[in-house]
Structure formats: structure tokens, C-alpha cells
């Protein structure tokens, strides 16, 4: 196994680990906002590392570019959507764990 | 050769084009476009029927690819007869609809009706199992949109009901087709007919196809959606549903069953379908007798009439096939005329109850003549298409030594007579005081009469449709 492949495998594994962490977070965290936080980990790092790992294996630049494009889209959309979800949750009256709801 | 085959294109393409153009021109020209498209389609259908009557079965491979790869069209006598029926009955119903709907729904009704027409013609001509699915779905969705086009609660409810029963029906059909494709790697009905073998795949596929199409048609006991849907839909749409749309799925079933499945299926399955048909006849008629709403009487009568059509399956002879198709055609005309007449009555006096017909026979003579002629055809009394159909079926029942189906036919006729005359006899009573009869346009009075006359003519010159039917009949 070449060093590049090793590196790629490491990235992939790390990405998977973040995904796992995110899932565990979504499962274990106490309230909506914390779970949202865990979700972003998957979006940013989990997918990012997987994409990076795969990009290392990719045969062409176009493929790598497309991979990063995918990640980019996920990043952008997660940035907005998490915000939107959080706002919706707040409006729906979800109270942060251990805190008070802002008036 | 090409020019003759090209004839097959127009009955499908013209209404489609008409629908698209009618959508495009919008409010001012929709009637004009639809009218031109209707006349053109009627002509195209008649020309095709003429060609079939003189040259026999016509084929066309769309795109020129040929059977396993491309889609095949096949126009035999049965298809030609169906095209003619649709082209004659449909526009007459839509004439009535023009007045029934206001200007607003007009723009939606006419394109949707043209889509239905296109879909039915495509269905009739298609010899490709999957293409049949698409046409069935197009018919269903256009029908749903038509049912709900008035945007009132009963219509919406009826539309949803229909949709949610028709959808699983199509899906069952599709799964059946998927299994057949999986086994024989073809979607062409003719090729399938050569390749099917008895076995679990064929049995289950046939079961799925049958159940699916019976759901859409519908056959007892899958008919539960029919009465509320037929009652809730706008009357012209009910007429379309009952006269033409429900016949589409029956047509597919008849085709597939007689051409593909019957040779490899156990005869008991045909008997089962027959038993369900018989149950539909008795149950539908009994319920029709118990209704107090005019439209529901006619709706339940559809359950019963569809039941008769299924008696073809246990007999499965060419005579029975002719009888069932004859019933399809004459029921289309007769039931359409009855529904349209019911619509007229509702328009004139605003009463939907059975008693609403009191005293109307003289105020609306054409409507009631149409009702009477349509009713006669439903009962199966000569001179009417319904009689010819029942006669053919009765003869086959005796000829195949299955007299019990004959008994069902006869008992069903008596029950039909009971509910038909229940409607008619009230019209001879004097007009109750306090009821005002609004006058309705002459066109609306004549439309049901024209429909009923079709049913009558079918009973007077049966040799023509029967000769046409014999063209390309497999057995």
C-alpha cells in the first residue's frame, strides 16, 4: 500500500469517525440545539475528511474538483439550514437544555 | 403501407395536440381549438375504423424499432370499435359539460377531456404492456383532475377516493408487468402471448394484473370507491368515468386475459372472476334498488353492469368476448345518456332525490326519452345494444353449458328493470306544486338523446359492430 493510499485511508477513517461522533451526538445530546451542533460536525468534518480521502485516490482533477464541489455545497447548505432549523426550533418553543428560552 | 399505418397516429396525436394547444390559447380560443380537435379526432378514428374494416388488422412500430425494443401499435376490430365509441360518446358528453361548467372550468375541462381522449385512444391502440400502464395512469390522473375540477368538497373527496384506489391498481398492474418482463424480457403483448408458460411467475403476474385492473374498473368487491366517487364528481365527469374511463381498464384486462393469460391459466380462475362478476351484478343491482338519490341509483347500476362484463372470463369464447365488448360499448352510450339526463334533471329542478323526477316527463321529453332508452339498454330489452350483449352472453352461457351465468344475466336484468322503472315511473306523475322547472338549453336535452340513440342503433344494426369485432379476434 502506497503512502498516498495510507494517507487516504487515514482520512477516510477519520471522516467515518466524525460521522460516528456526530451520530452519537445526535443520539445522546440533551436538546435540539446540541444535536444540531453534532450534526454540523458530520457536515463539515465528517464529509470533508471523507472527500479529502477520496480525492487523494481520484484519477483525475475533474473528479477531485467535483468531490470538493459536493463538500462545498453541503457546507453552504448546512450553514444555512442549521441556522434555519435552529430558528424554527426556537420559534416552536424548544427550550435549550439547562438554559432559559430567550424572550 | 406507411400512409395507412400513419392513420393510427392521428387518433392519439390529434387530441394530445388539441389539449396542448387548448392550454396554450387559454380563455378565448379554448372552445374553438377543442371543437376542431374533436372533429378531427372523430374523423381520424372513423377513418381508422374504416381502414380496419376493409383491410383487417393494422400494425405500426413506433419509431420503427420493432417489437422487443420499441413500442407496437395494433388496431384490430375491437380497437376500432372502441375508438369509434370514444369518439362518439365522449364529445356528446363534453357538449353537455360545456353548459354544466361555467366559463372558468371550461378552460380546464376541455384540455383535460382531450387528454383523457388521447390516453384512451392510446390505450386502445397500444400493444405494449408498459405503455398500457402509462396510458392507464394518464387516464387516471386526467380523470382525477376532472373529478375535482369544480373544487368543491364532494368533488375533491371523490377525486381523492378515485386516485387512492386507482393508484394501487396501477401499481399492482405494473408489478405484474415487471414480473412478466423479468421472465420473458419483452413488453410486447403479442410476444408475451407466445412466451408465457404456466408457472408461479405467470400465475402471480396474472393475479397482480387482474387485481390491479379490477380495482380500477372496478369489480366487486373492490368497487367500494365507485358510488361515492360517481356521486361526488360533476355529472358530466361521472358520465365520462362510467361510460369511457372505467372501460379503459376493462379493455386492458380483456385483452391481456384473453390473449396472454387464458391459455395458461386454470379454468377455475375464470370461474372465480365470473363469480365475482355475478356477485357484482346481484349486489350492485340490490343496492341500486335501495338508493334514494337519482345519481346513486345510476352509479350502483354501473357496479352491476361491470359485473356482467366479467362473465366473459369463465366462458372465454369468441361469442362471449363479442358479448362483453358489446356490453362495454352499449353501456358506454346508455350509461352516459342516463348520467347526462340526470344532470339535466338536476339542472332543471335542482332536486337530486329519486322523487325529483315527478312530472318532468312532459317538461323535458327528450331527457326522459333518453333516460328510458338508456334504461332499456341497461335492462337488456330489445331494441337496444344491451339486449344484444346479453343475448350473446346468454347464448354462450348455454353453449358452454354454464347455464348459471345465464341465470345471473336474467335475474340481473329483472333487477335492472326494477330500478330503471323506479326512476321512470315517477316522471309520469303530475308535477308537484311549488316546483319550478328551469328551462335548459336544447343542446343539453339533445345530447343524452343522441347518446341513447347510439344505444338504440346498436340494438338495431348489431351486425356492423359484430362484423368489425370479428376482425383480428384471436379465437
Amino acid at each position, binding site marked *: 500500500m502506497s503512502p498516498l493510499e495510507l494517507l487516504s485511508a487515514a482520512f477516510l477513517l477519520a471522516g467515518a469517525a466524525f460521522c460516528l461522533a456526530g451520530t452519537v451526538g445526535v443520539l445522546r445530546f440533551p436538546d435540539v440545539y446540541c444535536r444540531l451542533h453534532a450534526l454540523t460536525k458530520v457536515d463539515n468534518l465528517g464529509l470533508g475528511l471523507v472527500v479529502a480521502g477520496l480525492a487523494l485516490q481520484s484519477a483525475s482533477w475533474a473528479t477531485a474538483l467535483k468531490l470538493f464541489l459536493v463538500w462545498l*455545497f453541503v457546507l*453552504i*447548505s448546512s450553514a*444555512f439550514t442549521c*441556522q*434555519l432549523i435552529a430558528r424554527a426550533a426556537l420559534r416552536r418553543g424548544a427550550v435549550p437544555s439547562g438554559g432559559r428560552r430567550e424572550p | 403501407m*406507411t400512409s395507412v*399505418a*400513419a392513420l393510427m*397516429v392521428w387518433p392519439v*396525436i390529434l387530441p*394530445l*395536440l388539441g389539449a*396542448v*394547444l387548448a*392550454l*396554450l390559447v*387559454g*380563455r378565448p380560443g379554448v372552445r374553438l381549438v377543442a371543437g376542431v380537435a374533436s372533429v378531427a379526432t372523430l374523423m381520424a378514428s372513423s377513418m381508422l375504423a374504416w381502414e380496419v374494416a376493409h383491410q383487417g388488422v393494422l400494425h405500426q*412500430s*413506433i*419509431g*420503427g*424499432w420493432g417489437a*422487443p*425494443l*420499441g*413500442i407496437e401499435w395494433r388496431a384490430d376490430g375491437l380497437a376500432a370499435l372502441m375508438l369509434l365509441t370514444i369518439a362518439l360518446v365522449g364529445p356528446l358528453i363534453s357538449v353537455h359539460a360545456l353548459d354544466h361548467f361555467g366559463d372558468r*372550468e371550461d378552460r*380546464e375541462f376541455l384540455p*383535460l377531456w382531450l*387528454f383523457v381522449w*388521447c*390516453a384512451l385512444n*392510446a390505450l386502445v391502440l397500444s400493444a405494449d404492456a*408498459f*405503455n398500457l400502464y*402509462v*396510458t392507464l*395512469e*394518464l387516464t387516471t*390522473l*386526467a380523470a*382525477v*383532475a376532472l373529478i*375535482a*375540477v369544480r*373544487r368543491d368538497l364532494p368533488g*375533491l373527496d371523490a377525486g381523492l377516493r378515485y386516485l387512492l384506489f386507482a393508484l394501487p391498481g396501477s401499481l399492482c398492474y405494473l408489478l405484474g408487468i415487471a*414480473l412478466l418482463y*423479468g*421472465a420473458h*424480457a*419483452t413488453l410486447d403483448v403479442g410476444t408475451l402471448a407466445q412466451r408465457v408458460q404456466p*408457472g*408461479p*411467475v405467470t*400465475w*402471480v403476474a396474472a393475479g*397482480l394484473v387482474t387485481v390491479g385492473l379490477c380495482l380500477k374498473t372496478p369489480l366487486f368487491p373492490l368497487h367500494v370507491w365507485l358510488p361515492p366517487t360517481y356521486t361526488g364528481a360533476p355529472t358530466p365527469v361521472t358520465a365520462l368515468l362510467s361510460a369511457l374511463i372505467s372501460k379503459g381498464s376493462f379493455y386492458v384486462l380483456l385483452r391481456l386475459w384473453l390473449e396472454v393469460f387464458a391459455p395458461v391459466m386454470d379454468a377455475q380462475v375464470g370461474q372465480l372472476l365470473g363469480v365475482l362478476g355475478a356477485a357484482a351484478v346481484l349486489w350492485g343491482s340490490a343496492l341500486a334498488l335501495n338508493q334514494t338519490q337519482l345519481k346513486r341509483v345510476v352509479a350502483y347500476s354501473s357496479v352491476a353492469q361491470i359485473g356482467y362484463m366479467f362473465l366473459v372470463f369463465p366462458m372465454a369464447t369468441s361469442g362471449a368476448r363479442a358479448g362483453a365488448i358489446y356490453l362495454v360499448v352499449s353501456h358506454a352510450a346508455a350509461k352516459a345518456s342516463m348520467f347526462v339526463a340526470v344532470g339535466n334533471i338536476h339542472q332543471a329542478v335542482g332536486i337530486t332525490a329519486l322523487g325529483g323526477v315527478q312530472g318532468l316527463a312532459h317538461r323535458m321529453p327528450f331527457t326522459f326519452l333518453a333516460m328510458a332508452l338508456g334504461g332499456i339498454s341497461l335492462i337488456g330489452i330489445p331494441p337496444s345494444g344491451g339486449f344484444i350483449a346479453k343475448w350473446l352472453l346468454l347464448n354462450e352461457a348455454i353453449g358452454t353449458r354454464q347455464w348459471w351465468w345465464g341465470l345471473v344475466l336474467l335475474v340481473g336484468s329483472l333487477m335492472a328493470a326494477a330500478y330503471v322503472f323506479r326512476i321512470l315511473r315517477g316522471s309520469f306523475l303530475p308535477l308537484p306544486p311549488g316546483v319550478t322547472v328551469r328551462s335548459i338549453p336544447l343542446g343539453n336535452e339533445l345530447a343524452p338523446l343522441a347518446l341513447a340513440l347510439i344505444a338504440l342503433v346498436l340494438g338495431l344494426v348489431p351486425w356492423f359492430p359484430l362484423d368489425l369485432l370479428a376482425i383480428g379476434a384471436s379465437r
Partner: protein
Amino acid sequence: MTDVLLDGCLALCLPLLAWLVLRTESLSQAVVLFVAFGLLSALGWARLDAPDIALVEAAVGTGLTGALLMHTLSWTEETPPDVRARARRRPWALLATAALTLLLGWAVLALPADSPGLGPEVEARREDSGVKHPVTAVLLNFRGYDTLLEIAVLLVAALGARAVNPRSERASSDAAKDPLTGELFRMMTPALLLVAGYLVWVGDHGPGGAFQAGAILAGGGVVAILTSRMGTPRMSSLRVRWALLTGPLLFIGVGVAPLLSGRRLLELPEKLAGTLIFIVEMALTVTIAMVLLMFFPGTRPSRAGRGGER
């Protein structure tokens, strides 16, 4: 080994998830689960080497249908009373499901295990079809007639949907002020256009095509509609009708034109087939996007201000 595990997992999860979708009491939960179900089925298509279908599933099955269902829930009851009542008392349902599965499974397993289907025939004639991608060849040439009728299905659905919900909420200044969705919309639009164009182009030789591209385009429009930036396209507008109907008219024209030279319906001349298919696909992309947009009849006004309906 891992392949089998993956397939087994997916194959098992799909019915399980479907069952969950149907047994939950809350409709909104059911819809969320349904979106997840769409995702898993897209993975299934991916495993079955059906990228075209996975694309459509991603665009429509998950994206738009999910949004549509979610959008619908605004009008309907959250937890209808009958669902709660019926969810429990249904031992027969499980039994029926099992019996049906067994019966159908029996038939499926009786199928020949290694049939190439029509694959070889398609491969043999692919050269004549004018496109390189076999699925596109089947869709727009070998079985182009199906696709023509499918466009009619779309038109009918759009017409029906618009007929029952004829209102078209116009852009409201209120919503346009929301910086978050505004920014999202601004950033999404070029990407969507880019990807849509790419998908039409790629349809010639790989997975992609009018429907996928149209769905992507519609995605942007749906966001605009949902954030009140845009009204649902109205059938009364001539421009909308042209956008909607150019594709079908062109398709019918391309289908019928061969008749004039004595050929059959949709029998495209070999040399022109590729170009014609591309043009038709372009026009259909717009049609499909329009149709999909028409399925979203604006936002639901808050119930307090119901009377105005705006």
C-alpha cells in the same frame, strides 16, 4: 463480503423504514421518515448500478416530494384521530403483509436468475439512436412514445394541481427581508443553473437528462416560492404557458414530422436524432421545471390572517 453486508443492510432497512413511515402516529414524523426512506432508496439505486434513477430519486423523490409533503402538512391536521386509533388494532395488517410478501417473493425467486433482458438488443441498436447513453436512448428514442405520454401525465398533473389551487401568492416584501433565506437563494441559484445545464449536457452520454435537470431548476424555484420571493406560476400568464408548452409542442412536432416524409411516428432520421433529442430535452427541461413549480401553490398564510388569503 462487505458488499453483501451493505446490500443486505439496505435491502432490510428499506421495508423496515417503510413500515415505520406507515405506523407512526404523527404525519410530520411520517414525512420526515419518508424523506429518509427516499435517501435510502437512492442508495439502493446506486448499489444496483442505476445512477439515472438515483439522480431522479435525489432530485425528486427526496428533494421535491419531501418538500411537497412537508408543505402539504401545513394545511392538514398534524395527528389525525383515526391514525392513532388504527395504528394499534392491526394484527391482520402484519399478517397480510407477510402473506403478500411470501406470495410475491415466491414468484420473484422463480424468475430466471441471469437474464440479460433487452440489454443486448439495446446495445446492438444504440448506434442508431443518436445518443450514447443507453438509458437515454431507450427513454427518448426506442420508447420515446412512453416519454411523450409521460409529459402528458406531467401536464395533466400540473393542470389539475393548478385547477384546484388556483391562487398564486405573490412575493411579499416581508419575507424578502429575511436575510438568511435571501442569501441562501442567491448562492443556490448559480449552482443550480450550472448543475442543471451540466445534467442536460451529460444526458447524451451518461446519466442525466431533462427530468433531472428540470427538477434541479425547480428546486431553486421552490425555495423562492417557499420564501415568498416568487409566486407560483399561473396558467393565466401567456409566458408561463409558453414555457410550459414549448417542450411538449416541440416533442409532438419532432414525433409527427417523420410522418410527412413517409416514416413512422417518432422515427427520427439517424443523422439528426442526436441533435433533435438534445433540443427536445432542453425544451422539456423548462417544461418539467415549470410543472414541478406548479405543484407548489405558494405558502400557507398564517391561520390568523386567513380571511385575506394573501
